[in-house]
């Protein structure tokens, strides 16, 4: 198995920063809507964070996983590695920030690992699609 360490080292923190930025933007965006009192919007933000943490983490890691794995071997493994690293970063940040243990942690971690895998899988498929015609042309 060959892990693309440099790409992982760049993509993992970047993916986590983007995912965290999504969570940071939640409350200001809700408040800007003017739809309710601060407590109302805080409760809404905390409910939404479950989805944003999981789905946003999935999408960001899918993109980062695809970038890490593209044009290289072991695409799916590199994608999963990306997801796992981002999940570890995320869990650490959540714990350090004082998040109560719960659904957010679990969903976010699962979303990131699944996203990384999906990105790697996509990159691997694209690579196969490119290499098969090349192989058939040379045979």
């Amino acid at each position: 198995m060959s892990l693309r360490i440099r790409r992982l080292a760049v993509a993992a923190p970047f993916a986590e920063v983007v995912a965290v930025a999504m969570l940071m933007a939640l409350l200001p965006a809700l408040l800007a809507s003017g739809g309710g009192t601060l407590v109302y919007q805080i409760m809404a933000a905390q409910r939404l964070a479950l989805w944003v943490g999981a789905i946003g983490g999935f999408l960001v890691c899918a993109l980062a996983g695809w970038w890490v794995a593209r044009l290289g071997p072991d695409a799916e493994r590199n994608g999963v590695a990306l997801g796992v690293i981002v999940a570890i970063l995320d869990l650490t940040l959540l714990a350090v920030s004082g998040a109560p243990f719960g659904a957010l942690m679990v969903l976010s971690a699962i979303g990131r690992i699944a996203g990384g895998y999906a990105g790697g899988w996509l990159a691997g498929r694209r690579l196969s699609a490119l290499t098969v015609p090349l192989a058939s042309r040379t045979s």
Partner: protein
Amino acid sequence: MMHRAACCLALLLVATPVYAHHSFGTFDLNRNIEIAGTIAGIDFVNPHSWLRVNVTSADGRVQLYRCEMRGATVLRRSGWTPEMFVVGQRITVQGAPDREDPHACYVNTIVLADGRKLDRYTQQAVSTAKTDGRAADAGSAAAGTARPNAHAVPNLAGSWAVEQQLMTDPRGRLGTLVPASRAKQFAPGGLPERGVAIPGSEGSGLLALLFSSYRIAIGAISPSVVPWLDAPVARTERGRAALIPEEQQPRNNCATTSILFNWYWETVVHRISQDDAALTIEYGQHGFVRTIHLDLNQHPANVAPSRAGHSIGRWDGDVLVVDTVGFLPGMLGLQVAHGPNLHVVERFSLNADGSVLTREYVATDPDYFVGEYRGSDVTPRSALPFVTDTCNAALNPVGANATGGRK
């Protein structure tokens, strides 16, 4: 939209109007200044007091500085009096400078001529004596007589004040507001569990705001640790449109917001008097008075709208249930507007020894907000007598008519 979101982020959180009031405005708490001079005067008023200090420079010129202090009511509750500040006496002020006015500051610590050093939130022995010739509190003598006899209804008469909130840093630079009874549990600038520093406090820049926004979303900060927040209600379109800017809010212009809000805001001392026909509540600000009619079963047909509305009360066992309608449109709380169809039901009850008054309330106004606006407050009897403190909107840097705060 982007601009609006950015503004919200900056004010955000917790940058609720609570903190817009109990925050630092244009004062830069990441810088320190110290001025030494003589006392030129004090405006011992709400919502903020101002100390005026004459400072003589090396070339002999005298410059007047204005330094912002806590409001008169909370200062009084902390044992401070205007008499502490004798015109002409030496004083040293350590504080934070104003970003816009080079001759204004936010008081952190003062050193008086007799050497006494007082931090912004220093708690001194409180004199319960009448000191200023204003109305003494006849009702406070009612403490301990919650139920005069076995057949009587509870006696709510007396003076009452919601517990004061103090910053965990006595200088008022760091941390957040906590109930006075808990303040000593915190190291200077400490935060309660799942709490957040007041935006604008020392060290809390944009990054701290961003981090707070993240911590709120992940549930690491709980709104329950922030005092005086509105109930969690959604606004209707009309409720959204009726919101007014911070500087026009009644609370920033020496006006009453609502019967609910002004009971706990600023933790002022109120007075209740009671007889068989009515219960009268004199709020400790702006001369606001409401009468709860105990001898009426229903509201009159044509109630003249007012800020207090029309209240009727009935005893449900030991609980006084008060129904109020007939309001002037306005603000119910910090961020919730209401119209003339606001309906408020309050339930007042005393604890066993009559020393603590609990109020639970439910307000509805489907035109302006969705569902019920619910809340409660717990109010001990006040050691201080009831007085109505002077309010000067011109000296409030947040108010629409602000003049003195910037001059």
